[in-house]
């Protein structure tokens, strides 16, 4: 999906007012700058492309971000503000099982979320 036609201003507000809080809650006090090598993004569409990839596509060692609150919020924001974006089918009912059964937040996942935080910050600075 090409994010060029999204309403970046509205996405930014949803990030600043809602998604940001969920990302901070996920990191639980750990700063994103404690992780090296942030991912660069050039412009708003590029940032959203990389945000979508990290949020919804599993990586080695971190397979479950799509069910997190910030991911459900990201999916809702992109679906609302990007024409033709059909959104990720997050099986909402079994999302975020009880903490015991859910995969413990791995450091690999925190690193992915640190990348997300930096990408969202960059997105909000330039849109």
């Amino acid at each position, binding site marked *: 999906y090409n994010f060029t036609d999204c309403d970046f201003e509205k996405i930014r507000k949803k*990030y*600043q007012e809602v998604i*940001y809080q969920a990302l901070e809650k996920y990191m639980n006090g750990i*700063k*994103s*700058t*404690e992780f*090296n*090598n*942030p991912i*660069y993004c050039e412009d708003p569409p590029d940032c959203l492309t990389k945000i979508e990839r990290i949020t919804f596509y599993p990586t080695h060692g971190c397979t479950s971000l799509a069910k997190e609150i910030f991911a459900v919020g990201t999916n809702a924001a992109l679906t609302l503000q990007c024409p033709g974006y059909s959104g990720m089918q997050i099986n909402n009912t079994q999302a975020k099982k009880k903490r015991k059964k859910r995969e413990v937040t791995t450091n690999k996942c925190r690193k992915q979320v640190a990348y997300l*935080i*930096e990408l*969202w*910050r*960059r997105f*909000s*600075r*330039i849109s």
Partner: protein
Amino acid sequence: GDWALEGALQLQIINFNFEVVQVTWNASKFSGTNLTFLYKLSSDKTSSQCSNYIFQQSHTAGCLLEAKKDEILCFSIKNETHLLLTKCQWISAYLKPSSPKDLNFQWHQEAITVTCSDLPYKRLLYEIQYKSMFDTEWQSKEGETCNVTTDGLDAEKCYFFRARVKTMESSYGPDTYPSDWSEVTHQQRGELRDSCQERKLFPKFILIS
């Protein structure tokens, strides 16, 4: 890992208004050797060694490098034999905006609008602080542009004003620095004053109810 070394080096990064980035370290734990600073901005093609070291007791203690835009800085610090630290971060994470200049004041009845020129980048908070001679603390008002109106003032009283710029944490992170305060200016009856006489008042506060 890097985190521990970063602590040992007492590393500090300050991005002065996206014009100059200052990286400083304390090499005293490394028997006073001359540490070398290599860096590459995301818009640079190749890495380069620092061309503008900061010295302390004749040893390298930091580097000043020119910043051009909001981008990622990668750098490494070495002694003669070992690579001590490598780090990559957005330079915006350590931004210190320049302080507001040429403040302009416009009175209208019991309100005053303070304006100045906006900095060329976004997601900043322009903070205006004011107090009258009878107030013990500054009162703050913020705006996302440098056009902040404060009302409920008494035109007869003399007021102190100052301004600074802060960053929005959701856009820059928690490690930035507020700008320095602007000079304090004094206003009374809609006009600029040289000063407001500081009155050593024994505050006669009477809580009425």
